[in-house]
């Protein structure tokens, strides 16, 4: 390898050509602060505008200071990361940034998690010498995301994610000079734009400029309300991430503690979205099999590929960008939706509580789920199937608010009858998981034989686009693809549009690595090892399960027997499937 030698802070280091000063310093244990720089290594997410200038260092012989995040090491370069000149400049730049930043850390949703706050603390900022004009933008609310543009430091991470990663482009820099800020077109509410509410902007925002809508207060009020019963469901990815909020290493599996905490908070019924994930496989899997068989039989009207429909940001995406292709995704509701519909019918009847007196809450790794709850079609006469959703981060706050020492909680079980699940359900939390879970069921159903191996390694991994051919003896070679990041989803949609899509079945997730890096998860601040740890934990949780195929879930089998009849029955069509809408911007021409 072509390497070069240079000196950083009086120590010599050898690095491959092309290494930035930041990376070279990092490998020597020198941590140069950064703000705009953001990288999820191995997940193709990167933002390097070199704009914030807090990482400036002195390079001997250079006229001005160099941004370490973007300046490549050169042979014999002499770098000083902590010379007075560099430190003074860095502090001044930070002070400038703070001089146009609201001073309300105590009330800020990012407090304690804010990278700007942490940097100010590390640098010992005690006073901001610059007084002057401050940005005055109104706060803006959508069902999922709160925007406070006054806290925007123009790092552009959100813009990169929104434009390049998701190919949505709802937010970007507007205006120029001092008024320049990242916002929507015409400063509109996110709901009135093409935003799909994936929330990855929130996940990467270093400050409180973008945050999730907080529903913890609603929960406390509903639990205290003697007239309603509360039930809660917890999504798969939450159990491999929540522990981080309590100082546990990334990848800790805290399923039992979550159930215990939710009970301690006071929910009447603590259920598991994993149960409805298994249910989803039954419905979606059946739909896949049906459509596939028709397709293989030569039916020209059937839409292939079938695409998954669990991810609410993905649903928003195809409704807004490809409504003409909305027949491709499965009509199956998401696990959250199936759970809500079942709770508000079957379970409400079972416990004899009218649906309006039953509050269903979900804990999700996601902010788009908040919007999904508000979808009119996912409720009855204005009463939502799932009343509202909170994120993993909100659950952590709720646990703290309720004086619960999470770390010392003994494990508890989920309640029955909507609490039992299989390994196929928990892997919904990672990219490729829905595909694998569906394959575990569909291949067995199609062949009528027990799978020789359960692990479909070929659809696992953390590449943004993965494809595999799954031989189904006697039926066909099933061509499948797994993508995450909506840019990759867009690529599939374009293939379909062009009639060139080679796949039978496609899984789509909006967030990097799937739900494990959902926008509601604990902030990873660009540390991809956290995501890898969660990813590994998901498959570990799968391995630990005694049952690992959805159709073997006894509580799922029971509900078909008791209530739904069979997958894709009329009743399940009514309750477990949905319709999609054309939400593309339209020109009203007269």
């Amino acid at each position: 390898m072509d390497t070069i030698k240079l000196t950083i802070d009086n120590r010599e280091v050898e690095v491959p050509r092309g290494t930035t000063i930041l990376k070279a310093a990092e490998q020597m244990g020198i941590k140069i602060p950064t703000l705009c720089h953001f990288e999820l290594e191995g997940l193709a997410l990167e933002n390097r505008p070199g704009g914030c200038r807090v990482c400036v260092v002195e390079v001997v012989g250079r006229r001005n200071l160099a941004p370490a995040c973007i300046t490549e090491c050169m042979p014999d370069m002499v770098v000083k990361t902590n010379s007075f000149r560099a430190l003074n400049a860095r502090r001044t730049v930070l002070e400038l940034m703070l001089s146009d930043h609201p001073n309300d850390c105590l009330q800020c949703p990012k407090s304690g998690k804010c990278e700007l706050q942490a940097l100010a603390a590390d640098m010992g900022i005690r006073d901001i010498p610059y007084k002057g004009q401050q940005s005055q933008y109104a706060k803006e609310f959508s069902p999922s995301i709160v925007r406070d543009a006054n806290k925007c430091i123009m790092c552009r991470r959100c813009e990169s994610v929104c434009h390049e990663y998701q190919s949505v482009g709802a937010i970007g820099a507007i205006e120029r000079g001092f008024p320049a800020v990242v916002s929507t077109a015409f400063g509109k509410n996110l709901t009135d734009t093409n935003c799909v509410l994936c929330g990855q902007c929130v996940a990467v925002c270093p400050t409180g400029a973008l945050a999730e809508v907080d529903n913890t207060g609603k929960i406390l009020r509903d639990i205290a309300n003697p007239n309603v019963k509360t039930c809660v469901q917890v999504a798969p990815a939450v159990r491999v991430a929540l522990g981080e909020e309590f100082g546990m290493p990334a990848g800790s599996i805290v399923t039992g503690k979550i159930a215990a905490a939710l009970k301690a908070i006071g929910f009447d019924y603590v259920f598991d979205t994993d149960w409805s994930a298994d249910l989803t496989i039954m419905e979606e899997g059946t739909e896949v099999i049906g459509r596939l068989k028709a397709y293989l039989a030569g039916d020209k009207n059937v839409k292939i590929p079938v695409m998954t429909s669990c991810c609410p940001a993905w649903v928003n995406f195809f409704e807004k960008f490809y409504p003409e292709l909305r027949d491709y995704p499965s009509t199956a509701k998401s696990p959250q939706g199936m759970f809500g519909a079942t709770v508000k019918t079957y379970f409400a009847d079972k416990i004899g509580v009218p649906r309006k007196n039953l509050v269903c809450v979900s804990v999700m790794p996601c902010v788009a789920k908040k919007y999904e709850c508000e979808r009119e079609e996912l409720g009855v006469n204005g009463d939502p199937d799932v009343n509202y959703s909170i994120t993993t981060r909100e659950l952590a706050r709720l646990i703290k608010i309720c004086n619960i020492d999470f770390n010392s909680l003994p494990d508890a079980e989920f309640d029955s009858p909507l609490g039992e699940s299989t390994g196929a359900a928990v892997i919904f939390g990672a990219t490729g998981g829905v595909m694998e879970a569906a394959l575990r069921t569909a291949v067995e159903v199609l062949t009528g034989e027990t799978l020789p191996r359960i692990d479909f390694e070929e659809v696992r991994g953390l590449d943004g686009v993965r494809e595999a051919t799954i031989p189904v003896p006697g039926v066909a070679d099933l061509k499948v693809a797994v993508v995450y990041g909506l840019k990759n989803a867009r690529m599939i949609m374009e293939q379909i549009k062009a009639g060139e899509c080679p796949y039978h079945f496609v899984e789509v997730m909006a967030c990097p690595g799937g739900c494990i890096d959902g926008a509601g998860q604990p902030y990873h601040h660009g540390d991809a090892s956290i995501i890898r740890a969660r990813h590994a934990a998901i498959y570990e949780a799968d391995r630990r399960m005694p049952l690992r195929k959805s159709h073997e879930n006894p509580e799922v089998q029971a509900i078909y027997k008791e209530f739904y009849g069979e997958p894709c029955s009329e009743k399940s069509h009514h309750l477990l499937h949905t319709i999609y809408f054309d939400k593309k911007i339209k020109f009203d021409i007269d």
Partner: protein
Amino acid sequence: MAVKMHILVCGGTGCSASASHEIVEELNKELVAHDLTDFAKVVVTGCFGFCERGPIVKIIPDNTFYTRVKPSDAKEIIEEHIIKGRKVQRLLYVAPDTKQSVPDSKHMEFYKKQLRIALRNCGFIDPENIEESIARDGYAALGKCLTEMTPEQVVAEIKKSGLRGRGGAGFPTGLKWEIAAKSRPGEQKYVVCNADEGDPGAFMDRSLLEGDPHSILEAMAICGYCIGADKGLIYIRAEYPLAIHRLQVAIQQAEEYGLLGKDILGTGFNFEIELRYGAGAFVCGEETALIHSMEGKRGEPTFKPPFPAQSGYLGKPTNVNNVETYANIPVIINKGADWFASIGTEKSKGTKVFALAGKINNVGLIEVPMGITLREIIYEIGGGIKGGKKFKAVQTGGPSGGCLTEKHLDTPIDYDSLVAAGSMMGSGGMIVMDEDDCMVAIAKFYLGFTVDESCGKCTPCRVGNRRLLEILTKITDGNGTMEDLEELKNLSAVIKDTALCGLGQTSPNPVLSTINNFWDEYVEHVTEKKCRAGQCKALKKYMIDPAKCKGCTACARACPVSAISGTLKNPHVINQLDCIKCGTCVEKCKFGAITVR
């Protein structure tokens, strides 16, 4: 009968604004009326440079130089000068020092010290007629390059000439071409002309494009030949309609003549040129920002490397030069690098075009050899300070530059001496200031410009310049402290050190250079709340002299904020806290009792 006389009328933006086209019409009418169309011909040319006295009409071959010509003067010019051979004395230029009228341009101080290389054709040819350009060696250099020289030889010649970029930073042009030529050989490449002249008070590029568009096209084609590009793009301000029009005409004519397009001069070399329009963003003068703008994006600069030569327009190797740089290329090829290198100073070869403006007698466009002194420019070419006032400073390099003062008057001007003096060459704006100009207010003016034009991408420029401006405003409002002055210095230094692009890195220059050269003015504003130039409104103090005040109450009644109190027939007093310094009272007072300090 061959045409014996040419009547050149300036068709530059400045003179056009003063109705030069009507003069052309009238002149033509008179020629027709006197049946002289075979004898004399009216030619609309580019800028003569002497904008101060525009509209300009020049008669060739005798070089008679008429100034401030009106359409109604056409008759006299034709009847007296063309027919009878008698110069119209009242229209001749009068030298401000001798008060004598000057018979022709060769005797005008304004032109004596000038050396016109880039501007060689401006004011001599009809820019909308390619034949006039060709008659003055237009496209000869391109022909020579294509038929007699290899691209390497051309690059070597440019390198040898010592030509440096005229856009501001002064990067050696030949070296730039060489890098672009060696970058990713065989791939699509682009030649870009930066004509987004945004420096307020500079109009070199505009005049060049209006006066001699073919030289630019020719040079771009030569550059394309050198670096292996077949496509050129001119990024030009949309606010320059005349320059755009002339470029369009020139491109079309050059294509018709086979001097642009496919298989130029039968050599197999292809080169076409397109126009791209700026949309009002100074930062787009920075080459990476310019490229983004050409790609239909926000004009935000990006970190270099990669340089445009490595990855520019649409990610392809791109060479960006400014208009004036290109204008020098054909002459270097035609006359040789040695000739060019013999002009100028050791490290700055050739000439530089400046737009001379401000408090100077001869406002206009000048081209002078590198190494000329400021004194020569201001007092000889520029004719001295207007109204006999005292010279105070000259700002070069626009908002990115700094001011030069009395002590710099005899410094030879080149890239390096200007930087050493705390300014920079910039694109060539040269604004002269006199004793009535407040240097704190000037620094504030430039900062206001930078704040408006900052792209907002990096923190030091986006927030830092705003804070600098706020501190300067505090000072000119009379609320400044000595700590503020220290903060100005620190903040300026940090912005210079940390900003992302050239605009940001140079934006504090006007502050730093005025602080360096006029520190006592800053201190006066702070400690004495005094603006010696009387420019800072807030520092003005209106006072009523009780000895002169008759107590007529006129001032008190006129004061819009009732800041004047007093009773009839007794001296009045201005309440300084309420006074908004509008000056109404001064106008109303019939006794001269109100003074301004």
